[in-house]
């Protein structure tokens, strides 16, 4: 697998490998999972070949992350994929370790810390949150100010990983406090890092939600066809047929928006919109699937709640409500008042 190049390769070809790998990971701890996923070539899909990656476009990470969503993988896969590439130029050794599964790294998506330069070192202070699986991770990428970022070993002096409340049980998100944490200045990534990371993460979050939503709808469809009430399959009832049809519309909306967001001409609007659509539709699909399951849906045993938890966590992680308002704000700001332009367009 690691010898494959982009030529003639289709993103969909990764779906099968990824689904199998995710299933195999079910009983493993995080470190073994890292090794296993690395052996299948999945952690370096978008990283350069210099660090052991496949150097493929982001579109190839989509089916991998979707498979992880569908199989409820308990591993910070999106973070590993993005980090392997984000680190490849500045910290190639670390990138290599992520790709090979030797190092478990994650990203704290919320909050930022202050950084002060002291000679060849930088001292970090502050707190960050929504760091997936930080408890198990060797390193966490934290945001500095508004755009830069630094890779911080979790065993550094002054780093405290705290449990945080969170819906997703398989990928718990932690808060990380940094009190006078000293790291080498070379561990600080350039100013543009965070914007690129955030924009690609939006696409991959949508992919993860797609995987979950697809599974939820398939479960609901199956349940509606097999469960009988009033002497008929549930799917006989138009109310449920229409509810499932709406879930299908939402699902295809996410899928098409992802395709569009990784297209050649896609920019920040497509990237933001794909995440926002996936967050809204993904919640509707998993909640709708739960409703179709009736009382069964509320039981711990039926995994719909796990998907719902994950979708909600991803929605919050990407700050859906903040970015929705920001998207509106940008759109409004870009347009002049009507008095200035008699005719728009």
């Amino acid at each position: 697998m690691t010898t494959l190049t982009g030529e003639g390769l289709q993103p969909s070809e990764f779906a099968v490998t990824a689904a199998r790998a995710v299933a195999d990971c079910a009983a493993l701890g995080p470190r073994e999972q890292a090794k296993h996923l690395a052996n299948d070539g999945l952690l370096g899909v978008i990283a350069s070949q210099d660090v052991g990656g496949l150097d493929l476009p982001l579109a190839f990470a989509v089916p991998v992350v979707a498979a992880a969503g569908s199989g409820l993988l308990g591993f910070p896969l999106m973070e590993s994929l993005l980090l392997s590439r984000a680190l490849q130029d500045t910290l190639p050794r670390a990138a290599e370790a992520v790709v090979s599964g030797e190092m478990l790294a994650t990203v704290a998506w919320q909050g930022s810390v202050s950084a002060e330069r002291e000679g060849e070192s930088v001292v970090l202070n502050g707190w960050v949150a929504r760091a997936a699986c930080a408890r198990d991770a060797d390193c966490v990428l934290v945001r500095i100010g508004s755009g830069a970022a630094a890779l911080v070993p979790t065993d550094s002096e002054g780093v405290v990983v705290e449990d945080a409340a969170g819906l997703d049980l398989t990928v718990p998100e932690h808060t990380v406090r940094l009190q006078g944490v000293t790291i080498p200045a070379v561990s600080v990534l350039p100013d543009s890092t965070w914007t690129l990371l955030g924009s690609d993460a939006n696409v991959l979050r949508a992919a993860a939600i797609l995987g979950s939503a697809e599974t939820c709808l398939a479960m609901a469809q199956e349940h509606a066809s097999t469960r009988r009430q009033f002497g008929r399959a549930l799917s006989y009832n138009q109310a449920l047929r229409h509810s499932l049809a709406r879930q299908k519309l939402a699902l295809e909306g996410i899928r098409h928006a992802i395709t569009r967001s990784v297209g050649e001409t896609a920019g920040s609007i497509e990237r933001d919109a794909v995440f926002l659509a996936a967050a809204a539709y993904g919640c509707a699909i998993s909640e709708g699937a739960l409703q179709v399951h009736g009382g069964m849906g509320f039981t711990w045993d039926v995994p719909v709640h796990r998907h719902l938890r994950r979708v909600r966590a991803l929605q919050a992680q990407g700050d859906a409500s903040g970015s929705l308002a920001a998207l509106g704000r940008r759109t409004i700001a870009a347009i002049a008042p009507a008095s200035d332009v008699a005719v728009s367009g």
Partner: protein
Amino acid sequence: MTVIETESPEAATAGELSGEPYRVAMRRWLRANLPASFRSDSPAFSSPGLTQSKEWEAAMYRAGLAGITWPKAYGGHGRTLREHLIANQEIGALAMPESVNSIGKELAGPIILAVGTEEQKHRFLPAILEMRDIWCQGFSEPEAGSDLAGLRTRAARDGDIWRINGQKIWTSGAYRAQRCLVLARTGPLEDRHRGLAMFAVRLDAKGVRVRPIKSIDGRESFCEVFFDDVEVLQSDALGAPDEGWNAAIRVLEIERATNRMYRAWRFENELRHLISACKSDPALAQLVANRHYEARIGEVVVDIEVLKAHVETAVDALVNGDRIGARGSLAKLHWSEAHQRFAALTLELLAQASLPQLPAVQVARRRFEAIYLQARAETIYAGTTEIQLGIIADRILQLSKGK
């Protein structure tokens, strides 16, 4: 009456432009030639009359902006569906009136291309593009709306002639049309889908009576059409008898998936117009700067982006030779409901203007009040929302209806 004078139409069609240069040529031509009075976001707007509309659309055709994918042999421009999409993006970007012959260009034309004879293609298609023949669609009947298979208008064969008797309703634009695409029953009513045939009926034929119906927006946009022993030549029958249902389904799939491909871009034009109008009024400018309305506008942007994604996926599929089939219902459902949500938002916002007499607010209110009312039909025509949901459940999810 103004005569539409256009800059050399050859400018747009000249050479074998494609991709971005093609887009630029189409954009230039549209912007140079679209009269300000046609633009509903302009203070100069006044709804164009039929003659003006016909002239404008004929000019658009000559400039390469209609019949884009139709073969050159039948007057088309022989271009790709991707170029059709590009042209539609440029058409959508400007607040121009809807085509008065969209049924001809987007429904009758494609169906004639699919099932018509060579003679019919030569006879009907150029006349549609040159705006000599405006078409309407005679499917719905008083007793057959969502359940088209229940239609009762009959066509009985008498040698080389068919005799049509019955009544159609909700026939958009029939009062100004030359031809009607009529779906009629040739077999017994019990046969439902079988024994349905399609005809190109001249509306000036003896026995045809058209009665306009006043609609929600105060306009006379659709009509009742009565057929009293109307004689139709066999040469005006489209496709084999009994194939009418399949042909109709194909028409409807086209209607749902690719019809008015500019919708997403028109929608974007409407959003731009709304925002620019809001920013010109002090109270509205303040309102849209609060987080609630920022988020609501954000939702509109997401709706538009998702619509573009549906359209582009459909184009990709068609370019790859796939039939759209039931998937057309997905895009149709999304655009109709998203547009209604948006239309409601426009009214809600504009109602809060502090200077309603401002020309910019007036222009916007006139446009968006019309859009709001017209959008109520979008979840009804081309198959209601409930029918689309049924199609997705039956044909895409294939949910069992049995016991």
